[in-house]
């Protein structure tokens, strides 16, 4: 009987499994294989040998190193900041009663807005053109500062806009999840704490935070993974030639190696992809280890 059920279960899983194997597992293995095949050519389907040369090349490529640096800077800045801001906004949303729905909608709007459309808005805000320095520069000069070129100017300015953009794009989803997590904390815990005279900071750190820790942990993990895969937002701001702008990301580098102007190197692209995979895997494992101690599941 169980044997038969097992068979049935596999049968039901089959469609999903077939697609998974064709579009996920096979390419993954293929990428892995490519990454060790030197000078692989799509057209001939041949390579000149196997070894670690691809990795060595990629790791010595200044564009790749720049991309790794950029990606890490984005991850380190945007993940904590976006999670923190989202938490603050959700706490505020949770504590107001008037206009809560309106604000919830406002905060959720970026989520349903197209990345490139958002990019256009950012251009208006930040880009210097022959006619205008951009809204932000107008503000800066109004308060007596010096105008900065955010799109084609110094590295820190470009990175600032990039991180600003990423945070703004990922915020709504985090706010959504955190507000519902906050709302699901049973109010008698707060009543009990109030009767005992617990201050609001202690309530937050000792009760609220542990209670919503699973959601925060989920947001941090997916935030890390998402930020490491950053690419389209960079294109929206700085165009497709990210190497020239010095704002390339690891995924951008992989894309360039495959299809970009300097492209046609699937082996290098695969090696870079594998390196990214290892980085993400390591960070996720560290996250999981840390979470064991600090995340409380009911």
């Amino acid at each position: 009987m169980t044997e038969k059920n097992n068979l049935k279960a596999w049968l039901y899983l089959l469609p999903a499994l077939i697609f998974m194997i064709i579009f996920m597992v096979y390419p993954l293995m293929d990428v892995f294989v490519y990454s060790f095949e030197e000078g692989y050519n799509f057209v001939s389907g041949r390579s000149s040998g196997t070894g670690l040369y691809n990795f060595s090349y990629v790791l010595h490529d200044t564009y790749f190193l720049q991309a790794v640096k950029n990606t890490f800077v984005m991850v380190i800045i945007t993940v904590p900041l976006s999670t923190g801001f989202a938490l603050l906004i959700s706490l505020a949303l949770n504590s107001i009663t008037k206009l809560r729905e309106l604000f919830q909608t406002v905060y959720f709007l970026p989520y349903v807005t197209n990345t490139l459309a958002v990019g256009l808005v950012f251009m208006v805000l930040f880009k210097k053109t022959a006619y205008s320095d951009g809204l932000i520069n107008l503000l800066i000069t109004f308060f007596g500062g010096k105008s900065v070129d955010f799109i084609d100017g110094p590295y820190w300015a470009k990175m600032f806009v990039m991180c600003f953009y990423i945070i703004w794009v990922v915020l709504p989803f985090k706010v959504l999840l955190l507000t519902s997590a906050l709302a699901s904390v049973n109010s008698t815990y707060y009543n009990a704490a109030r009767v005992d005279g617990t201050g609001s900071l202690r309530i937050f750190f000792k009760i609220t935070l542990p209670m919503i820790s699973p959601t925060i942990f989920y947001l941090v993990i997916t935030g890390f993974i998402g930020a490491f895969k950053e690419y389209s937002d960079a294109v929206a701001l700085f165009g497709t030639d990210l190497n020239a702008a010095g704002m390339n990301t690891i995924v951008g580098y992989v894309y360039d190696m495959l299809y970009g102007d300097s492209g046609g190197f699937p082996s290098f692209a695969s090696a870079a992809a594998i390196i990214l995979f290892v980085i993400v895997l390591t960070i996720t494992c560290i996250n999981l280890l840390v979470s064991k101690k600090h995340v409380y599941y009911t």
Partner: protein
Amino acid sequence: MKVVLDKLTKVFPPRGGKGDAVTAVKDFSFEIPDGKLVALLGPSGCGKSTILNMICGLERPTEGKIIFGEDDVTQVNPELRGVGMVFQNYALYPHMSVYNNIIFPLGNLKGEEKLTKEQMREKAEKVAALVQIENLLERKPKELSGGQQQRVAIARALIKTPRLLLMDEPLSNLDARLRLQTREEIRRIQRETGVTTVFVTHDQEEAMSISDMIVVMKDGELHQFGKPQEVYDDPANLFVAKFLGTPAINVFEGSVKGEKLYIGDDCVLDVPGVKDCDVTVGIRPEGFTYDANGSFKCKLDRIEVMGRDISIVSKNDKCEAPVVRSIIDSDMRPDEDSDIVSFNLRPGKVHLFDAGTGARIRFGKENK
């Protein structure tokens, strides 16, 4: 500490501006004597928990005053009132160990009151011993049974040695056996600490069995306040009479003619001092004595043996319920084959109420 509630009223505003305002508690006054265990008893939705929340400070009364000892605490925040509260679902913080749950309130002390870790441990161990959970301190709440969680919640409420202990339906989440055990525990803990305690319950048996005083309420209004036995023996109105006692009081339609009480055609009791009128008659199950020549006749349905006593289940057209339950001594067993069973009534166990308002009509010796 003595607690006085003076004309408390709580009106909840309509939700979202729609509908009517709800008056949960109306003009509610009573005095909780120092060191007593008092039960707030009433059917669900009668405003018991609202009163508890007002005493504790989580809700502010719309009108009226709350006085703790000599202090008017009506506008005082809960943390400054010196109360311990046990919530219905215990509200134990699930991510903390039992020990950390118990000492949580101590962590809120500031300035000179601040305790060292050793002092906290000492206090926690003392209160844990009181509620007998010394060996559970390192566990998480979810690893405990309902009864154990209840004890932890009581320990947490007691650790700051509150002036007043409040419990919201303390036994409702426990199974029947644990409920009996735990209510004895609550009684014992209250005796040992001597802390004035108020608990809310909808279970009259629970309230009667362990409290020094019970407050019977309905629809936000106080119906009667007194010692359990007094309230049972001398109910102020039909609601109180019906709400207290298992098996419940038997209620009949009756009438008084010439200072005699009639149920149907049977003249069952002398009721000196009562004018002729229609009445509602309440007779406690123990108010019947079996007598083959008794004045009150019912159709015999069955006899249930309960050991020392027997319960005679009979029928009467004038009875509000489908059957009349009477409890009599097993020596007085009636003939099971007869259709009719006759009783005499014991005056102290028969209560008359106004047929319209349900207010008590006293007669004979009761009419002091």
